[in-house]
C-alpha cells in the first residue's frame, strides 16, 4: 500500500553550512559565464507577456497600447462599423502578436474588454474579467498538475492590467474603486489616467494627491509630428503639439519604462509567485477538487525532446 508521505530515506551526511570562498583571489574559474548562458537560453525560448486593458470605451485604450508597443497591436474602436452595437455585456477579446526586438522574441497578447462600464447599470461588470483571469490560472494549474507535463506550459495568465481612469479631475469613481478592490487581489493593476491632455498640470497633481497610488497620467498617439526638428509621437491641437514622450507633457515615458523596460519580468514573476500561488492554494484547499478535464492524451507526451 503506498502512502502519500514516503518513509524518510536515510539521508547521507547533511551538508555543512556553506563555506564562503571568494574565488577572485584564486584565479578565474568561469562561473560568471552562467549569466551569458542564461541570457542565450532565454533569448532562444522567447517570452510571453499578456496585458489586459480595462476601461470605458473612448478612453484611448487601444491607442495607448499601440503607442506602448509602437505597432498596430489593437484595432481601434473607431475602425468598427458605426452600425455595430455596443456590447451588452463585457466581452473579453484576446489577440496575440509576435514582436521581435534586438534578437528578443516576445509573444504579446493584448486582452481587450469592450463593454466595461458602458452600460447604464454597471453592477458586477468586473465579474467577466475576474472570471477570465481565474480561468487562465485554472488552465495553467491543470497543466502543471498533469503527470506527463509539457516541456513548456503555455502561459496565458494576465501579467498586467492597465486600468483606465477617466480624467474627470475629481477622485476615483465608485466603479473604479469597486473594480480595483476586487481585482487587485488576483492581478497586478496599474491605474492610468487616460487622455491626460485634457487635464492641466495643477489638476493632475491635485488628482494624484487624492489617491494613495500613483496613476500614470498618459497620452497616447501613433502619429508623428515635427517638433524642433525631431520627429516625435504626439497629438496635434490648435494650441500646440502634445509630445507623448516628453515627460513635461505626460507620463507616458514613465509608464513605458516601468512596464516594459524595468519591470516586465517583475510583473510576470509577481503574477506567477504570488497571484498564481494564491489561486492554487485556494483551489487545492477546496474539498471538491479539480473537475474532470479533457486532456488530449497525445499532446501530453512531448516532454522528451
Amino acid at each position: 500500500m503506498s502512502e502519500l508521505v514516503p518513509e524518510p530515506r536515510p539521508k547521507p551526511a547533511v551538508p555543512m553550512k556553506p563555506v564562503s570562498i571568494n574565488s577572485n583571489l584564486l584565479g578565474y574559474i568561469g562561473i560568471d559565464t552562467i549569466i551569458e548562458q542564461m541570457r542565450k537560453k532565454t533569448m532562444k525560448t522567447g517570452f510571453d507577456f499578456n496585458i489586459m486593458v480595462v476601461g470605458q470605451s473612448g478612453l484611448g485604450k487601444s491607442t495607448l497600447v499601440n503607442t506602448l508597443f509602437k505597432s498596430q497591436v489593437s484595432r481601434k474602436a473607431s475602425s468598427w462599423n458605426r452600425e455595430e452595437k455596443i456590447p451588452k455585456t463585457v466581452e473579453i477579446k484576446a489577440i496575440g502578436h509576435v514582436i521581435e526586438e534586438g534578437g528578443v522574441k516576445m509573444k504579446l497578447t493584448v486582452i481587450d474588454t469592450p463593454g466595461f462600464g458602458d452600460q447604464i447599470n454597471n453592477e458586477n461588470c468586473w465579474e467577466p474579467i475576474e472570471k477570465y483571469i481565474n480561468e487562465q490560472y485554472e488552465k495553467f494549474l491543470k497543466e502543471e498538475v498533469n503527470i506527463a507535463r509539457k516541456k513548456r506550459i503555455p502561459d496565458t495568465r494576465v501579467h498586467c492590467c492597465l486600468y483606465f481612469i477617466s480624467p474627470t479631475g475629481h477622485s476615483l469613481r465608485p466603479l473604479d474603486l469597486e473594480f480595483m478592490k476586487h481585482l487587485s487581489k488576483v492581478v497586478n493593476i496599474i491605474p492610468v489616467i487616460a487622455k491626460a491632455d485634457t487635464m492641466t498640470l495643477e489638476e493632475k497633481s491635485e488628482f494624484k494627491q487624492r489617491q494613495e497610488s500613483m496613476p500614470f497620467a498618459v497620452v497616447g498617439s501613433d502619429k508623428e509630428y515635427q517638433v524642433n526638428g525631431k520627429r516625435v509621437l504626439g497629438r496635434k491641437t490648435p494650441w500646440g503639439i502634445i509630445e507623448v514622450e516628453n515627460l513635461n507633457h505626460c507620463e507616458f515615458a514613465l509608464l513605458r519604462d516601468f512596464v516594459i523596460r524595468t519591470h516586465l519580468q517583475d510583473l510576470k514573476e509577481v503574477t506567477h509567485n504570488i497571484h498564481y500561488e494564491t489561486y492554487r492554494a485556494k483551489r487545492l484547499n477546496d474539498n471538491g477538487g479539480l473537475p474532470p478535464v479533457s486532456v488530449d492524451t497525445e499532446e501530453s507526451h512531448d516532454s522528451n525532446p
Partner: protein
Amino acid sequence: MEEVEPAHVLRNFKYVAFTMNEELRNLSLSGHVGFDSLPDQLVNKSTSQGFCFNILCVGETGIGKSTLMDTLFNTKFESDPATHNEPGVRLKARSYELQESNVRLKLTIVDTVGFGDQINKDDSYKPIVEYIDAQFEAYLQEELKIKRSLFNYHDTRIHACLYFIAPTGHSLKSLDLVTMKKLDSKVNIIPIIAKADTIAKNELHKFKSKIMSELVSNGVQIYQFPTDEETVAEINATMSVHLPFAVVGSTEEVKVGNKMAKARQYPWGVVQVENENHCDFVKLREMLIRVNMEDLREQTHTRHYELYRRCKLEEMGFKDTDPDSKPFSLQETYEAKRNEFLGELQKKEEEMRQMFVMRVKEKEAELKEAEKELHEKFDLLKRTHQEEKKKVEDKKKELEEEVNNFQKKKAAAQLLQSQAQQSGAQQTKKDKDKKNASFT
C-alpha cells in the same frame, strides 16, 4: 528613431494559438520599445538570488576526485582523504559559496566514499541512486505542497555526475558499466578518465574509443552537449569528439618557463594541468562550467526530474486518465489517498490505544496480586508476633512463679535458720552447762 529590422517569420513556434481569435500575427515595430532588456531583467533577478550547482563525483577511493574538484574551482576544499576500509558506499555532501564578479554560486559537491572498496560490490550503486532520488523527492514534495515557495527553494538536485574511470588502459570495469547504467536516466553523466598522466598518448586514444564503444553497445546514455543553438553548437560538437575527457588534477604549482602553473612534477618531466597537449582538463572546465552549466541545470529539471516525478506519481496511483479513458483529476486521487492515509492513521491510533488499555489492565492485575501477597505476609507476621508475645508472657509467668517459690523457700529457710539458731544457742548453752558441770 532607431531602425528596427522587421519581425522574422517564426519557425519553431511552440505555443498553442489563442482560443478567441485569428492566428498570431507578426508585427513590425516602428520604434524602439525596449523589451530587448528582458533577458537582462531576467538575469538580474537570478543574479540577486544566486545560482545553485550540484556536482556528484563517482569513483574509486584514491582516484583523484577531491583533487580534481580543487583544481576545477581553484580552491582547497577541506577534506580528509578517505580510507579503504569503508564497509559500504556512503555519500558525503559539502556546500560552498563561491563568488565571481557579481555572480554568487552555491556549489555542492557530493562524494562517493568507499566506492569500489568492498569485496562484494553488488549494491554499490544503491546509495548513489537513493541519494539522487532523495533530492528529487524533496523537490517534488515542495512542489506538491499547498503553500509552497519554489522561487527561493534551495535546489539540491544533482546537475552533473562526473564518473571517474580508472586509467587501466584496457576497458571499462563491469562495476562502471552497471553503475552508469543505473544512473543514466537520473542524472547527466559526464565520463572522465582520471589520472590520465599514467597513460601514454597512443594508448589513450585506443582507450577512449574502447570506452565510448562499450558505452554505446551497453546502451548507456551519457550527457550530450547541446548542439541546437548556433553559438555553442560548434564548440560543443568539437569537444564531444574528445569524450571521455582524460584529466589530471593538481593544486600544486610548478615553475614552467617563467610562470607558475598548476602541474605535477615527475623525475622525467612536468605534466601541466592546463596544457591541452598534456590533458583534457581545460576542455572539461570549458564544457562543465563555461559553456553548459545552465544547460546541465535545465536538463536536470526538464528531463530527469520530470521522469522521476512521472514515475513517482504513477507509482503512488495517480493517473491522467483511468481505464475507461475518463480523465482523473490529480486532486481527487490526492484526496482519496489522503483519506486512505488518514484512515490508516486512525486505525493505528486505535490499535495503540487498545494496546495501552490492555497493558494498563495487566499492570493493574499484577499490582493487585502483589498487594494481596503483601497483606498475607503482613498477617503472617502479625500472627507470628502474637505467638512470640504469648510465649514470652508464659515464660514471664513461669519466671514469676519461680521467683515466688524462691522467695517462699527463702523465707522458710530463713525462719528455719533462725529457729535452728535459737535452739542451737540453747543447746550450746546446755552443752556448755553440761560440760561445766562435769568439771566441777
